């Protein structure tokens, strides 16, 4: 099996990303949850798997029900990115509303004191 440079780079980055995720969870850093870690392992682990074993995309294609293995990869990545963006936008929206609520409460304090 010939190892190419891109495979080493992808696996190296994946290992660092997964390690930092596990470390954050173990140390109990705020914002890190088991769900987030599992997503991280799924995404980076999946990238490493495809980089090391390109034939894995054929299995993925048959699983997803698409004929072309590249199409299957693109579709899966597209769905993942879409889900991540959706989650991010939801989080931003919630933050925006929390900020507005806090700002409102603070400005109404004066009236409540009277």
């Amino acid at each position, binding site marked *: 099996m010939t190892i190419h440079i891109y495979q080493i780079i992808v696996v190296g980055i994946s290992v660092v990303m997964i390690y930092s995720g596990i470390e954050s969870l173990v140390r109990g850093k705020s914002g890190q949850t088991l769900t987030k870690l599992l997503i991280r392992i799924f995404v980076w682990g999946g990238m490493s798997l495809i980089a090391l074993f390109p034939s894995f995309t054929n299995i993925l294609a048959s699983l997803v029900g698409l004929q072309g293995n590249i199409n299957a990869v693109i579709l899966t990545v597209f769905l993942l990115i879409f889900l991540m963006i959706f989650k991010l*936008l*939801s989080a931003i*929206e919630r933050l*925006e*509303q929390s*900020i*507005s609520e806090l*700002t*409102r409460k*603070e*400005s*109404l304090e*004066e*009236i*409540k004191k009277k």
Partner: protein
Amino acid sequence: MNSKKIFIVIPAFNEAKVIQSVISEVKSAGYQNIIVIDDGSADNTQEKAKELEVIVLRHKLNRGKGAATKTGIEAAKLLEAEIIVTMDGDGQHDPGDISKLIEPILEGNCDVVLGTRLKNTEGMPFQRIIANKIGNLITWFLFGLYVTDSQSGFRAYSRQAAEIINTRGDRYDYDSEVIREIYTHKLKFKEVPVKVRYTEYSMGKLQKQGFINGVKTFYKMFWKLIN
């Protein structure tokens, strides 16, 4: 009704140049309960408003016209308002129209009265008319109720309506969300033609609420539907 129970809510962002004239006009029209919400202005809007002895609240951060309006309505509710009128802080609305807005509520016929600029479009820029009509169609498409001016900030609410209406929109999507709430809670509403004064100053403000902001408002409305 005792005029002490009628509150005028004026959200203002960087309106130091005109806020005093807006407040004075409202007072001259016979309304003394005025709540100005300085929405994190970078100029001295707050100080200018305070000089005229009205209630001035300040958002430490700019949260948008919708958020400021909601703060004003919450304040009015705390002060036991029975009728709440909202109007813009840039002087485009004529306080002389307030009586027309509150009349249907005083008569007990309505929960919400919407001031509409599109029943009399005299002096209104053409692109503004088109933009408002598009806004009306989008509001109707997303929320199910067609009104002639879904983006008007000149409105009156009964106490009951103010308690029921629950919005999340911080920016210009707030105005459309109120329409959704009217439809959802089957509130009785009426549209009343109001004058709009398109001065050089207010036109400058309108330019800032141009096409890009319109697209942002649509996106926010749509996002809240699917989220």
